[in-house]
């Protein structure tokens, strides 16, 4: 499993390379000419206010915005390009290329059970074959799910749903994990627990990007923090630096 490797990565392999990406919804341009490189083994935090393009950036990587242009290379393979219509048409191909997007608001299948959910996360052929072992791994990360396996997800609480949604994303053999606001709408204590679980996942050869509004939740736990402001990435810092500068203000 991708996040089970655990060893430090010596060479800096590029997982994601975004070059000149613009994207938006309808007539609105949300992402403006954005560049970003993510290396294997990295855990990155993207912070920014509501409506500054964090979720749109993730959607664009998955090919789900209304339109987009610019190059997105995932594991060295081009998944971006210019597209003016058909949001989501090629998303499943990007997902098979090694993307796992854990969207804001969970996007669960209300009627499916927790177990079916985890199965549905393993739709890449390799993941489907050893889905039993993978489910065990997920249950180790999120132990409360163990006794809920045959419960329809529509009956779960917000925190449990978040665990299901994250677990579904972790089931596939993804090399890039995009996590959109994992603490959103949860009680602070539960939000912190979810964040802690995310930080404890061994990335191995994969990379993780977490979008978050609450800088304090990321402090000291991610490798880099990047600020996002009106559709552009602004400034980048190691977390210790970000920590210090925040204290100075």
């Amino acid at each position, binding site marked *: 499993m991708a996040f089970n490797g655990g060893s430090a990565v010596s060479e800096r392999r590029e997982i994601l390379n975004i070059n000149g990406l613009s994207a938006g919804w309808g007539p609105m341009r949300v992402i403006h000419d954005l560049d970003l490189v993510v290396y294997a083994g990295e855990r990155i935090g993207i912070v920014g206010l509501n409506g500054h393009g964090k979720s749109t950036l993730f959607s664009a990587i*998955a090919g*789900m915005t209304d339109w987009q242009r610019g190059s997105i290379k995932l594991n060295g393979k081009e998944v971006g390009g210019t597209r003016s*219509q*058909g*949001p*989501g*048409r090629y*998303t*499943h*191909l990007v*997902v*098979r290329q090694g993307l796992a*997007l854990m*969207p804001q608001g969970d*996007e*669960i*299948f*209300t*009627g*499916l059970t927790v177990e*079916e959910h985890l*199965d*549905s*996360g393993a*739709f*890449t052929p390799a993941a*489907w074959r050893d889905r039993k072992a993978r489910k065990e791994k997920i249950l180790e990360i999120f132990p409360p799910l163990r006794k809920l396996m045959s419960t329809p997800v529509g009956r779960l609480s917000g925190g449990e749903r978040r665990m299901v949604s994250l677990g*579904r994303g972790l089931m*596939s053999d993804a090399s890039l994990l995009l996590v959109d606001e994992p603490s959103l709408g949860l009680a602070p204590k539960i939000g912190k627990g979810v964040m802690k679980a995310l930080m404890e996942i061994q990335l191995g050869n994969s990379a993780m990007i977490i979008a978050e509004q609450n800088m304090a939740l990321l402090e000291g736990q991610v490798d880099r923090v990047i600020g996002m402001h009106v559709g552009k990435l602004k400034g980048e810092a190691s977390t210790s630096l970000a920590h210090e500068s925040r204290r100075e203000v």
Partner: protein
Amino acid sequence: MDIDIGFVAITAVTLACIYGTLAIGVSITWSSLGLINMSYGFTFATSGYGAWLVSEYISSSGPVVILGGILTGALVGVLVCAVAFIPIHDKPNFTVRGLIASLALSLIGTQALLYFFGPQSKTLPPLFGDWELELGEVVLTADKGGAILTSILMLTLALWWMRSSRRGLEIRAMMMNPHAASLVGIGVRRTGFYVMALTGGLAGLASVLLSQTYFVSPFSGVTPLIKGLSVALCGGLGSVGGAMIAAVMIGVNEALTADILGGQYILITQFLLIILVLIIRPRGIAGILDKQREA
């Protein structure tokens, strides 16, 4: 006034099975693809002709003819998917465009059937042999018994496949949240073909079963389309259970009306019943329509 309860009950169950098969097809198509499939009637009629061709040229044994009908239905379903779903499913305002595209396909297809086979109706050979089963005072004839058994068997098979297989999980995931389905790597287009083949096959089955009572003609799909759609609506689009309950209600109503008032009043009482149900439960019996398509 005396009602022949046994006869009414058997007719009601037969109709419920056939309408249920149709309605489940409509319901699954709507909730997974977001397509109101107006060419369902065309699929129905063409399957009748497919079964007729099989019985004329290959073999007139029951299972072969039924299989011929189901396969024709599945093929037409795939055709409808390729023409009325694939090119437009991610364009704006798909619901209305899809409705019109499938309606157009249905009209063209019906005229084509008229052109190739002529206006004369065809009859299928009796598929279930010639036997009768006496249950107390009630006589279960071969065509009705066969229709009930076959449709229950095929529906169980289809629903079991959707519950247990990987493709079934894909379809169910897409019924519940199409957006999230593509996020976990389910291809909307490929799943579309599976869905349309499955529902087309169900229409083909219903067509062969109903042709034991009615004739196969180019326009024989119109009434089943209306009934399938209204039963699916009444049950709450997107719900298999709701469609089954609604099918039983409509079946009982149709059998009772035919026995008490006469066959010409069936459509009147049927739509009164559906209107009544929709006044009491605007989203249909199981009523999950809006929740399903929100995403």
